[in-house]
């Protein structure tokens, strides 16, 4: 536990998401950074490379020929005991998918930033959550950011989480391409010593690695029960990560003065009778609509999902118990359910409740469309219909209907 300190800010700057993430790397000091330029993440690469050229960051840089080879450099370095970072987006993530699976199965604490973007096809170099949502069951922890400050803070927290000896899982820091990667916001920059202190518990932590003193082989060809055991441990680590995320958020708040609520943020949910659920930058738009409606006397709240994997089941159930309706706005498509992924998973989680909570699902902001305030307003209205038991559509594609 960190001793009580007064949070302090080194300076305030206006940064976009890519540069905020890059600045976090200056503070976290990875040993190896492997990136391939890909829109909308490219400025992150360029910023980090310039840091190294200017002598501000001492990291091995890999301008990989392709994303799988970039991630593989990080895998090799991480297996050898190093701290690593990778940045990519949609097609890059798809190309590295084979190694992406290995990283989590081998329990290597790599941190990867995803400036989220649509998967081709159709080809659209535009924002959405489709890339990391498609990859959600590869075993990585997936944290999702709402704003640029959160990107910087979450990257720092990602290393604290990934390298924790009880977790040892790779972490995705997902932030919306374009909306967060390119647009700027006010960012408070922490002191390097404070980040060093925050990461100290994991920076010197021991984990198995490729070294001559204790020559191990990884991964082994595990069969039958042993294979099951590794999957079981992996699953158990994902479960442990939930509480760990909350714990790390509290530690972060104590040292830096900023909290994001851990796995979820409950915004004005206490006496709300309908709650909107979402993740990513559109949470900002929903927040605004919630405030407007509250001013008009409507009892409405918002749950911001900050982590898709592991899914914050327990906290969601607690937050949504007794609500009259829940509306989920997804910036992705889950083909099996003809809805969004967060809708589907929230619906599954709410099975735990003794009383059924009516749910409405919305798909908005995919393919480069905005998730506009009037769309959120419509979503709230439809959810209100559900709360009142009136006929309504279960799933609405807000940009089309």
């Amino acid at each position: 536990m960190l001793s009580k300190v007064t949070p302090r800010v080194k300076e305030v700057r206006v940064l976009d998401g890519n540069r905020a993430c890059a600045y976090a790397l200056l503070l976290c000091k990875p040993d190896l950074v492997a990136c391939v330029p890909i829109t909308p993440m490219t400025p992150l690469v360029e910023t980090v490379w310039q840091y190294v050229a200017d002598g501000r960051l001492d990291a091995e840089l890999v301008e990989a020929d392709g994303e799988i080879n970039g991630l593989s450099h990080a895998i090799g370095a991480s297996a050898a005991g190093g701290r690593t970072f990778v940045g990519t987006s949609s097609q890059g993530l798809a190309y590295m998918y084979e190694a992406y699976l290995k990283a989590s199965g081998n329990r290597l604490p790599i941190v990867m930033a995803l400036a989220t973007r649509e998967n081709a096809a159709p080809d659209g170099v535009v924002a959405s959550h489709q890339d990391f949502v498609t990859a959600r069951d590869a075993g990585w922890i997936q944290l999702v950011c709402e704003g640029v400050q959160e990107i910087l803070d979450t990257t720092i927290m990602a290393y604290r989480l990934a390298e924790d000896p009880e977790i040892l899982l790779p972490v995705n820091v997902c932030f919306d391409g374009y909306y967060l990667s390119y647009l700027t916001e006010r960012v408070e920059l922490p002191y390097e010593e404070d980040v060093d202190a925050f990461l100290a518990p994991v920076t010197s932590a021991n984990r198995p690695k490729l070294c001559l003193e204790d020559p191990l082989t990884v991964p082994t060809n595990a069969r039958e029960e042993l294979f099951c055991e590794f999957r079981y441990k992996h699953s158990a680590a994902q479960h442990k990560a939930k509480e760990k995320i909350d714990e790390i958020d509290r530690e972060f708040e104590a040292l830096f003065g900023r909290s994001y609520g851990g796995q979820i943020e409950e915004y004005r949910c206490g006496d709300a009778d309908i709650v909107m659920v979402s993740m990513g930058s559109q949470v900002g738009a929903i927040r605004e609509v919630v405030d407007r409606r509250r001013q008009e006397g409507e009892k409405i709240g918002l749950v911001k999902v900050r982590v898709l994997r592991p899914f914050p089941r327990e906290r969601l159930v607690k937050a949504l118990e007794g609500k009259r309706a829940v509306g989920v706005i997804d910036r992705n498509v889950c083909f099996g359910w003809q809805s969004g992924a967060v809708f589907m998973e929230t619906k599954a989680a709410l099975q735990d409740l003794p009383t059924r909570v009516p749910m409405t699902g919305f798909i908005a902001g995919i393919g480069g469309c905005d998730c506009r305030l009037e769309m959120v307003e419509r979503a709230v209205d439809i959810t209100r219909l559900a709360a009142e038991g009136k006929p309504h559509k279960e799933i609405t594609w807000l940009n089309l209907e």
Partner: protein
Amino acid sequence: MVEYQCEYEGPWATPKPTLFAYPTGEWRATRPVVNSAKCAHCGICYLQCPVGSIRDKGTYCEVDLSYCKGCGLCARECPNDAISMVREEAQSIC
């Protein structure tokens, strides 16, 4: 409550206390027999055995049958024909 076989979280394997080894000595259908008197200690079998089963006895070489797969390379490459391959007889497995 699941009882773990492995001390590690991830799929790490250790060479201690012993390395994994297939019982390749049980695979062979023929085994090499060395006529050590004829051996000229040229070292060809020693360098060429895939399994590393040839032991240098000083003035001649011998085969350690523990892992020998009976490939016959030693017999074929021995310039002196000091090694011959004989059939393994069937053995009951107790």
